[in-house]
Every structure is written in structure tokens, then in C-alpha cells.
């Protein structure tokens, strides 16, 4: 029974991801061919740019996956508890802003890790940004989808203002901040590669969240609140509202760390275009993994590889960027549509999905 359960779990979680991935490569090839390019050549360039060398794998694919891992965690934790935090994008940006400000204005403290200070600043920033949506939800009943989405717009305006105002580089010419000093930079993991320590921290965080979710009373409450808020309140006596606000704060902290890591580990300076919509991609990252903290690490890497492959196809096969964007968007749609397709398939093939009432009781 255990083995069967594991197999069923595998079928529910891993297979869709594999299927989507395989389908994606197929779609990609067809789209490229339709656009008049050599699909084989393009796919090979893409694969090489994503996995072709240790440099491609580490400096391109894994580096790109790092913010998606943190943001995917942010989305998964929130969605798990039924909090539809669409605001990871904004929390990411505010995290980057706070990290930049901390790195530029805080003194260097001997004995304290500069990267930790910067990441903590990012976490606090993301938390505060998410917290304002939490306050609106608790105090005024404002739907978090609406508030977090609007806060995303506000965050990008905030970055635009700061890089032309208080945080602008000293020559006051470019809309960007100065680079944070060496002391505050998140260290690179390997010499000659662009992957920073935030990658390992993300894996660590995902492990902790997985343990909490499936083995700890705290995570049990997250799941319960997400799956059956009324039962959680009535049978578990859980304060659903307070639990959701706490989860939103945690989600914001993860998104903020993503932004801080990107700033202090990759770009070092604050720019307007710091995120090409990572916060939205992360929703797909989390959903494709069915919100599983470990599974989403894999889907984040898959999306990182897709990005690296897209650039590689542009560079070496002349495939336009728009095509790779189209395919990414197609991937997200495919993931979102999957449960519905699956449900429809189950309706049309009822043999695989026996009626609920008669299954357990007749044992």
C-alpha cells in the first residue's frame, strides 16, 4: 500500500512536470521551425547554452534558477495556506531596494557577515511589503490578490524613483545605484562561476519548509488552513486569519531574500529592470511542482534552463527573443491548464477514477 502510494504520488507530482517539459521541447521545435529557422540547430544551441558545459550549467542555468527558487518558495508557502500572494514580484523589488540601501549606508561591522545583513534587510523589506497587504486583508478585508498585485506596480514605481533620487549613483547621470561594497556582497560559490551562495541557502530553506509542511505542527496548520479553512477554524480552533497573515509575512520574506540575493550576489547595483517578471514566473514554478518545496527547486532549474537556452538560441541560431518568450508563456499556460485537462480526461475515462464513496468503505 505504501509502495502504491509512492507510485501514485510520483504519478501526480513528477509525471506532469516531465510531460510538460517534454511537450515544451516539442512545441519549441515546432514553433522555431514554423518561424523559418533550423529547429534542430536551434535546440542544440539552446541545450548547449543551458547544459553544454559546467559554465553553462552553473553560471547560466543555476544562476538563473536561484531567484526563481526563492520566489517559488514564497509563492508555494502562501498558496499552500490559501493565501494567493501574487505580489512576489513587488516583494522581490522591495527586498532588492532594502538590500541596496543596507549595503550602501550601513557601516561594516567586523565579525558580522555583510551578506547576512543584506539578506536580512531584503527579508525585512519583502516582509513589510507583504505585511501591508496582510494588514489590508485583516483590517479592511481587502482581497490579497488585488492588494498584492497593486503593490507590485507601486514597488516598480518606487524603484524608478529611488534610482533617480535618494539611491542614485553619485554622478547623478545614470538611473541606477552605486554598487554595494565588497563586504556586503553575497559570495560566489565557485571560483570563475557566477553562482552565489543564495543558491545553497535556497535549497536549505526549501528543505526546512518541506520538513515544516509535512512533519511539523506549524506546517500542518498551513496545509489545513489552505485546504479547509472552515474545518480548520471549527475543528482545529485555528485562527485562520492570523495564520494567513503570518504565512504572507513569511512569503514576503522569501521574496525579499530573492531580491536581496539578486542585488548583492549578481548585479550589485539597483536597476529598474532588475526583474523581468520573476515574481509571476515563480507562480508557474510553484504550480508546476504542485507547491512541493523540493519539487519546485527542480521546476525553478527547468525555468532557469529555459531562460539560458533562449539566450543561447538567440546568440547562436538567430532565433528571436520573442519566440522563446512565446514558448515560456505557453509553458505557463500548459501548467495552468493541466489540472483541467486532467479532470476532463478523468471524466471521459472513468475507469481510472473510481467513485469516491465506494472505494474505501468496502475494504
Amino acid at each position, binding site marked *: 500500500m505504501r509502495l502504491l502510494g509512492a507510485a501514485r504520488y510520483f504519478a501526480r507530482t513528477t509525471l506532469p512536470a516531465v510531460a510538460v517539459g517534454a511537450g515544451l521541447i516539442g512545441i519549441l521545435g515546432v514553433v522555431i521551425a514554423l518561424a523559418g529557422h533550423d529547429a534542430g540547430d536551434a535546440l542544440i544551441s539552446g541545450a548547449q547554452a543551458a547544459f553544454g558545459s559546467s559554465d553553462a550549467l552553473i553560471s547560466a542555468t543555476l544562476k538563473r534558477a536561484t531567484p526563481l527558487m526563492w520566489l517559488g518558495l514564497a509563492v508555494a508557502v502562501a498558496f499552500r495556506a490559501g493565501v494567493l500572494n501574487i505580489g512576489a514580484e513587488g516583494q522581490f523589488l522591495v527586498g532588492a531596494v532594502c538590500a541596496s540601501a543596507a549595503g550602501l549606508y550601513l557601516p561594516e561591522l567586523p565579525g558580522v557577515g555583510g551578506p547576512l545583513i543584506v539578506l536580512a534587510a531584503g527579508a525585512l523589506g519583502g516582509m513589510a511589503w507583504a505585511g501591508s497587504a496582510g494588514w489590508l486583508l485583516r483590517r479592511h478585508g481587502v482581497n490579497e490578490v488585488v492588494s498584492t498585485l497593486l503593490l507590485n506596480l507601486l514597488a516598480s514605481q518606487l524603484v524608478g524613483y529611488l534610482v533617480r533620487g535618494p539611491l542614485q549613483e553619485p554622478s547623478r547621470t545614470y538611473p541606477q545605484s552605486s554598487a554595494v561594497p565588497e563586504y556586503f556582497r553575497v559570495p560566489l560559490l565557485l571560483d570563475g562561476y557566477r553562482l552565489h551562495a543564495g543558491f545553497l541557502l535556497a535549497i536549505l530553506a526549501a528543505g526546512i519548509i518541506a520538513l515544516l509542511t509535512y512533519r511539523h505542527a506549524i506546517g500542518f496548520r498551513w496545509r489545513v488552513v489552505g*485546504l479547509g479553512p472552515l474545518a480548520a477554524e471549527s475543528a482545529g*480552533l485555528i485562527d485562520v486569519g492570523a495564520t494567513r497573515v503570518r504565512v504572507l509575512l513569511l512569503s514576503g520574506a522569501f521574496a525579499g531574500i530573492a531580491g536581496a540575493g539578486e542585488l548583492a550576489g549578481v548585479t550589485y547595483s539597483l536597476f529598474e529592470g532588475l526583474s523581468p517578471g520573476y515574481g509571476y514566473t515563480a507562480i508557474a514554478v510553484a504550480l508546476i511542482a504542485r507547491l512541493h518545496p523540493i519539487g519546485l527547486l527542480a521546476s525553478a532549474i527547468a525555468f532557469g534552463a529555459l531562460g539560458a537556452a533562449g539566450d543561447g538560441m538567440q546568440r547562436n541560431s538567430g532565433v528571436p527573443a520573442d519566440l522563446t518568450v512565446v514558448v515560456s508563456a505557453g509553458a505557463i499556460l500548459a501548467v495552468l491548464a493541466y489540472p483541467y485537462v486532467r479532470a476532463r480526461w478523468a471524466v471521459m475515462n472513468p475507469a481510472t477514477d473510481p467513485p469516491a*464513496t465506494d472505494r474505501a468503505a468496502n475494504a
Partner: protein
Amino acid sequence: MSAHGPALELAGITKRFGDTTAVEGVDLRVNFGAVHVLLGENGAGKTTLLRIAAGLLPPDEGRVVIPLTSSAAAAQPSTAGATRISLVHQHFSAVPALTVAENVALGRGGLLSRFNPGAIADELAALHRETGLVLPPPNTRVADLEVAEQQRVEIAKALLKRPGILMLDEPTSTLSPDAGRDLYRWLGEYAAGGHAVVVVTHRISDALAFGTDVTVLRHGRVALRAPRSATNERELLDAMFGAELEFAPDPASADAAAEGTDGRPVVIALRGAGYRDDRGVEHVANATLDIRAGEIVGVAGIDRSGHSALLRLAAGRIRPTSGSVVRGSTVAFVPEDRLRDALIGELSLEENFLLRGSAERRGWVSSAEGRAKTAAAMSAYAVRATDTLVPAAELSGGNQQRFVLSRELADQPRALVAEHPTRGLDARSGGFVRQALRSMRERGGAVLLYSADIDELLAMADRIVVCHRGRVIAVSRDRAAIARAMAGTA
């Protein structure tokens, strides 16, 4: 048109889901011109068998034979074969926002077919002339229909496929008794017109009153097969449950009522308690009620009389907005809507067991400990499931209710609030639940019980209060007095 030839024959049907055997070696023969009632308690395998018969589910063993003799449907070549059988599901599939005609058109499928409301109205009128099925105007929105009308729309959708055999799964579960009678009367006439009808139900009274033939399923096997004329209630009960039932008034409650419970300690005390919701609607006003150790206090009330809020105040699930509610410790609570308020369908039984008290739980969740406790409680309350990892949604209604009781009473609470705990259960499960409440009382627990069934309250409760428009009125244990108080004419 033969009125009595065989319409459908099932021989030696066996169906397993994983380790679970849903039906085993079942033979079934359905004749034209008959209403065949498939009777069984929750989880007996009725629905599975129905789906196999309807061709929605392949059997593991056995065969389904649809004789190609003359029948109403076979006479029409265009529909012979594929749509010989139409199944009306227990849960309606009509889209509430659409009109009757639109829903009928939807049922047709056909992505490219044009929607022609006039043609559909004509078809429905023809159907009415042919079968006597009374249908609402085709341009009414389904959301505006009575439940019984909605069901007739479902039946119309099924009949428009011109089936030789019409199958209905628990068709009266959501209908009023009158509407249920009307439905069966129509089904009888429809069958008499040369069609075959199969009805799945757990109501013995329906089988006795309206069936032509009866097949009783028990644990996936055929326990009885007989024409209606050759059987009786006693026989059907025994076939369904295998044992005799008890739903007699409890002598203990009559004794307690005679003795009075005034001297016993108060476990839950409502003192002028009132409750207004966020929108300012008053549900309970100035309620004063003591629930004492070793008694069952019954609550009666029509819908929206405030009994729901009263129970939640007593259980500590909501806070009074005026007055006070004093409780000793956490109160066990069995809400009416199990799958909304007590269980989480997607979670395993183990996890659902841990749900109680999860707000205070700290540290790691030990699955071994949870499993042992769950298994112990489940066996004490005869919850039937393959193991503790089964999702709660996969249990039948009676098993779910026993599971909720087992969880709520696992750590011997001093007080229990139960909201219509026997709702939707078959007689056996209902009896089990009643017994659990009585033993709670016998070991000195305080019980507050709401039931929509006055007879059940009279059988169970030591004292009875009635909710009417948010007021709580104490009444004597007398059927007429209760009914008057419920209606507000006391």
C-alpha cells in the same frame, strides 16, 4: 413493444479498486416495464454497480448483456446501441446561470451545433406529451427553479437521449417527501409505458412503496433479490443490515426526565448570550441555558431560527457579542456539514484526526503516534476504511460521521455539541451515532443535540429547547408543544 422482456442482464460482476472489492459476483436482471430498486446502505456498492451497468466503468469480471430484443429504443435505429442507457446522477450537472433550454443544448455537446431555443422548446413539449414529465418553461433560469424542477430538467436531459433504460442515483435525496412521491409516481407510469427504470436508493420505504423489483446489496454482494410483492420491510432491513435495528425511545432518557437533572454540575452555561454577525444580523438574542453533566439537551428549530449560532456559541466556535458563555474545557463539536466544518476531504484520516486541537499543537508531528491513536479511535467507532492514510473524502457518509465522532470523543471530553449528527445516514449508521451520544451521557458527559427530526429528539433528549427567531424557549417533551414553538405559535 414488449412490456416485460429483459432490458439488461449483469452476470457475475466483480469490480475491485486497489485492495478494495466494491462489488463481487453480482447478478442483476432488469425488465422492461419495471421499476427496479437497487437498495443498500452507504458504501454497499450500489453506485459502482450502476456505473458498470451504464457502461461508465468496465467490470473486472462478469459481463453486461443488453439483449437486442424489441424495445422502445431499439426500434429507433439512430439511437440503438450507444445511448441505450441514460444515467441521472445524484448531483445535478445543470449550469444554474443558464436557462433550461440552454442546459438541454449543453447536454447535447456538439461544439459546432447551433443553439436553437425554439427547436428545444418543441422537443421538450413533445417529451412532455410522450412521457407526462412536467417541465418548467424552457426560458427559465435553472437557478430560479425548485430542487424538484431542477431534477426533472436532469431527467429530461437523460430522456432526450431516447434511452431504453433510465437509471437514477439516489433521486430523492434532495427532494421533499411530496416531491419524492411525485417523482416515483411518474417513474412508475414511465416504466409502465414499456421502459426499464433502475433506481438506486438507501430508503427502504421508497422500495416498498414504488418498486416493482428489489435487489438488496450488502458489502458488494447481492443479499436479496425479489419482486416487491414477495417481500416486506422486515426482510429488506435484515438483508440491508444483516442484524436487527434499534431506534426505540431510550428508557434512560425518560427516567432522567422524570428524575430531573437539576442537581448535577453545569458544564456549559449561557448567560444572556447573544450573537450578531459581521453584517449586524442578529442570530441569537439573550439566550440563557445550562447544559449539565449526564444529560442530553435537545434543540429544535426550523432553518435560520438561530439554532446553528446557538450550538456554535455553546461549543465555543464563535464568541458571543453580548452576554457570556462559560465552558469548563474544550467542547467536542460535531457540525452538520461534515466535509465543510469537520473534515478536510483531501487529507488522510490520520491528518484529519490531528486536526482537532491543532491550534495548540507544538513541535514535530509524529505520524506513528497519530496513526496509533487514529486506528484505535476508528476501531472503537467501527469506522471502515482500508487504512488510516485514506483521504477522508473517500469514506462514505456514515463512516465519515463515525470518524468525526471518534475523533471528537477520543480524549473523553466533558461536553459534546452535535448538530444533526444523523443527517443523511442510513439507519445503521444513525443508530450507531445515537448510541455514542447516549454512552457519552451515561459516563457523565453533557450533550447539546440539534436534530431536524422531532422524533429523534424525543427519543434522545432529557430536556428540549426550541429556537425561534433567535430566541431560546424551553418546552416540554411533547411533540405538539415542540411543533407549536418551532412555528412560533406557542
